[in-house]
């Protein structure tokens, strides 16, 4: 009966209930939109970074991560194929991409600039090809003379697509070696510092230049980023069972990912603070409504207690009213939030360049089930917490005093 009474009471003053539901619903929508925007930003940043730079999982020869910076060629994976074949059969692995990085000099005749070169296999690097934003020209076609140059580097050298350049580096054993190359395209990433010094060339060309058949790392690309830990563990077990001399690292534990991981934490903390502010604003509104409901119904509370309703039951009545408001507001808020998220996503939010980046991008509002649940639960908690104090106040009223309000 208390349940029925609570349910009917919330529709007693419809305009006030509507305003309260609007406050709860708006809080719910705000949590969804802010959270969905941040989720999308994090998702786009990390997915882009994974696809165009780092891969989901990396495999190195043991010791490379500790000493590879000083001695990059002492820790090469000499024959990656058998290991790659085995890893390929693990569930959720899309493909594997061996890479070989080195530093060198890129000369266009008049200008010679230091560069960081990365040898990739254009035939398998489908994610990289899709994610790379080509400023001019086309992606690598596999020919051993064609290279890609970061747009900052190209600008510094005043080089453009079709220009002939010379790439100079030390071989694995220390001898000087050079290779003629033609700029096939210029590319931009979200990382300006990278674009200012990076070149990409076919793996076979890099191996010839360095006079090695090995690679420094094997990148593992998955069908879903969420499977990273699971597959990292599976590869780790495979390596351990076969007593192989390799390290396996998920993307977020790599030094290269430090900036992205920190940015994700930063955004998540911003969202946490934002949620707190939304919580307080909505709670103040619901507390106000519940207080008004108690003040207006003092006489009725007296009647309830005179009839034999206990103080706990009176408290339960008002808490239940808060709970119903939370349920309705949460449901309506989630529904409106999803509709708004769809509309905004369809239109897109044009975003300026991120810090350290030269590329603009379009943000969306991600619809994440976990976030929907958070928004709904937040609405419930906000309404419940807000109703506790007024409910306590109602339960502490003196029956005789409360009854006098009926006169």
């Amino acid at each position, binding site marked *: 009966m208390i349940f029925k009474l609570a349910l009917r*009471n919330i529709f007693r003053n419809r305009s006030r209930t509507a305003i309260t539901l609007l406050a709860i619903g708006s809080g719910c929508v705000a949590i969804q939109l802010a959270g969905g925007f941040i989720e999308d930003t994090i998702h786009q940043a990390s997915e882009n970074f994974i696809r165009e730079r780092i891969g989901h999982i990396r495999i190195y020869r043991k010791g490379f991560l500790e000493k590879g910076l000083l001695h990059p060629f002492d820790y090469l994976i000499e024959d990656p194929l058998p290991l790659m074949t085995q890893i390929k059969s693990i569930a959720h692995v899309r493909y594997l991409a061996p890479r070989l990085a080195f530093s060198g000099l890129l000369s266009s005749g008049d200008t010679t600039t230091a560069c960081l070169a990365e040898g990739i296999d254009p035939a398998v690097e489908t994610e990289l090809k899709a994610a790379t934003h080509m400023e001019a020209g086309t992606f690598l076609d596999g020919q051993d003379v064609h290279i890609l140059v970061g747009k900052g580097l190209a600008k510094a050298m005043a080089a453009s697509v079709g220009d002939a350049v010379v790439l100079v580096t030390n071989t694995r054993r220390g001898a000087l070696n050079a290779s003629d190359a033609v700029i096939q395209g210029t590319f931009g990433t979200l990382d300006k510092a990278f674009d200012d010094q990076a070149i990409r060339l076919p793996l076979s060309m890099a191996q010839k230049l360095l006079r090695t058949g090995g690679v420094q790392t094997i990148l593992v690309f998955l069908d879903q980023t969420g499977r990273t830990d699971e597959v990292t563990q599976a590869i780790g077990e495979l390596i351990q069972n076969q007593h192989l001399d390799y390290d396996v690292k998920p993307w977020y534990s790599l030094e290269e990912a430090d900036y992205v991981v920190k940015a994700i934490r930063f955004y998540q903390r911003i969202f946490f603070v934002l949620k707190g502010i939304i919580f307080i604003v909505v709670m103040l509104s619901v507390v106000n409504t519940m207080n008004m409901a108690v003040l207006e119904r003092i006489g009725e509370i007296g009647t309830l*207690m005179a009839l*034999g*309703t206990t103080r706990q039951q009176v408290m339960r009545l008002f808490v239940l009213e808060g709970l119903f408001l939370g349920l309705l507001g949460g449901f309506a808020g989630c529904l409106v939030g999803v509709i708004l998220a769809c509309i905004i996503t369809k239109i897109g939010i044009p975003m300026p360049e991120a810090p350290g980046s030269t590329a603009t991008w379009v943000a969306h509002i991600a619809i994440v089930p976990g976030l929907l649940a958070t928004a709904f639960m937040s609405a419930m908690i906000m309404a419940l917490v807000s109703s506790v104090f007024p409910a306590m106040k109602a339960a502490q009223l003196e029956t005789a005093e409360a009854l006098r309000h009926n006169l």
Partner: protein
Amino acid sequence: MIKIKNLSKIYPLGALGVSALKNINLTVATSQFVAIAGASGSGKSTLLNVIGSVEQPTTGIVQIDEKDISRLSNDDVAHLRARRIGFVFQTFNLLPTLTAYENVEFPMHLIHTPAAERHDRVLSLLNQVGLERFSHHKPSQLSGGQRQRVAIARALANSPSVILADEPTANVDRTTGIEIIQLLKALNQKMGVTLLLATHDPSIMQQAGRVVELLDGQIVKDSQ
């Protein structure tokens, strides 16, 4: 049976307080219809409130069926009100969001009466107060007299020992007031429930089996 011994009630106000009831001694037999008479401010409502355990006495004892109710815990008081005491208020005090049927049913929920028993009893009570046809009406759809009849049916919901009616005809017209008093009297005789009714209307006092008159918080006349 109601027994009141040396009852006084002082409301704290200033240094001395206001004495609403002074040394009241009263015994009311089961099934008696007692009119508590007196002018406004004589202490009628306070006496009913103390008997109904809505207010605690400053001194003295109130017993209902041999049980001292003047110093009970909050939960015991609620339990007592739900089972032993029925209130009929001057302003009807029906719960506005519930129908007539649900208002009568409400006290039965508080003592966990089984659903089938509840249903039969609510219909029987509404029938006795002549409102069976209006069972699904909300209080706002009923006249003052009809509301008070629903309140009487509600007061009888859990077969209480005593009904405390505080000026139940004050907000209805004279004809309806007479009907209300006749209904209360009939139920008092039929069900054997003790009826204490506060009033300052001499025509209502004539209907009661006993009249206890209060003046400035003291019993100045008892017709028994």
